[in-house]
């Protein structure tokens, strides 16, 4: 895996990251389309994800929870906006309550994923994440951005500094 580029635009409230993988697009697509593969990478090792619903069709829902070191569970959901395997996936990503019901008080982000096979045989994956408003960004930074993990900013900072590349 090679990260090709990262573009962070606070004004547009968007981050775009481009990476290349040494595998065909249909294989890279599997890490999104197969819930057992998705849960291997969505959460960090300290907060592994368990995918409970996985309907990758327009309007479909993906439900998941992440389990923390204390056994604490943090639930999230995707609503599929667009799907065109193995090339494109767009979804809204939000927080859910303990029953898995989307929490309307929490902001959602929108992710656009595109995969394109490269002439050399690898696959380029572009992921664009957009926030709805600055207020939403403030709210999320307050909670920590680990997808539903309610860490305070100070804790997140510590976590990132502890990471090898942080």
């Amino acid at each position, binding site marked *: *895996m090679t990260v090709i580029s990262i573009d962070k635009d606070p004004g547009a409230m968007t981050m775009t*990251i481009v990476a290349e993988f040494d595998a065909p697009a249909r294989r890279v697509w599997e*890490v999104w389309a197969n819930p057992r593969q998705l849960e291997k990478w969505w959460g960090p090792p300290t907060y592994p994800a368990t995918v409970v619903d996985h309907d990758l069709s327009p309007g479909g829902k993906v439900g998941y929870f992440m389990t923390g070191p204390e056994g604490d569970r943090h639930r999230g959901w995707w609503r599929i906006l667009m799907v065109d395997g193995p090339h494109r996936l767009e979804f809204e990503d939000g927080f859910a309550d303990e029953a898995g019901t989307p929490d309307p008080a929490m902001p959602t982000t929108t992710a656009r994923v595109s995969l394109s096979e490269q002439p050399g045989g690898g696959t380029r994956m572009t992921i664009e994440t957009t926030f709805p408003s600055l207020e939403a960004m403030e709210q999320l*930074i*307050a909670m920590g951005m680990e997808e539903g993990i309610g860490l305070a*900013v100070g804790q997140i900072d510590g976590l990132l500094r502890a*990471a090898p590349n942080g």
Partner: protein
Amino acid sequence: MQEEHSVSALAGRYPMSFAAVQKHVAVLEHAGLVSKRREGREQLVPGNVNAVLAARRLLDQLEAVWRDRLDRIGEILATDTQNEGADA
């Protein structure tokens, strides 16, 4: 969290009114993060409450989250190759 600012100092530093800074602080307080601290007559808050600074920090954190995720995806794909010799 490195430093604290007083709400009035923040309002002086950024093109925002005291009331606007207070509103931002209130959002963060409401979300359960910031505990405003009083020292004498000053209200002290963490230094990252400014909205644009917060946006930058959040994008930095999101970058770290996705770099880790992409690393893990890379590992999953590498495991395929080890197990199967080539892609199935």
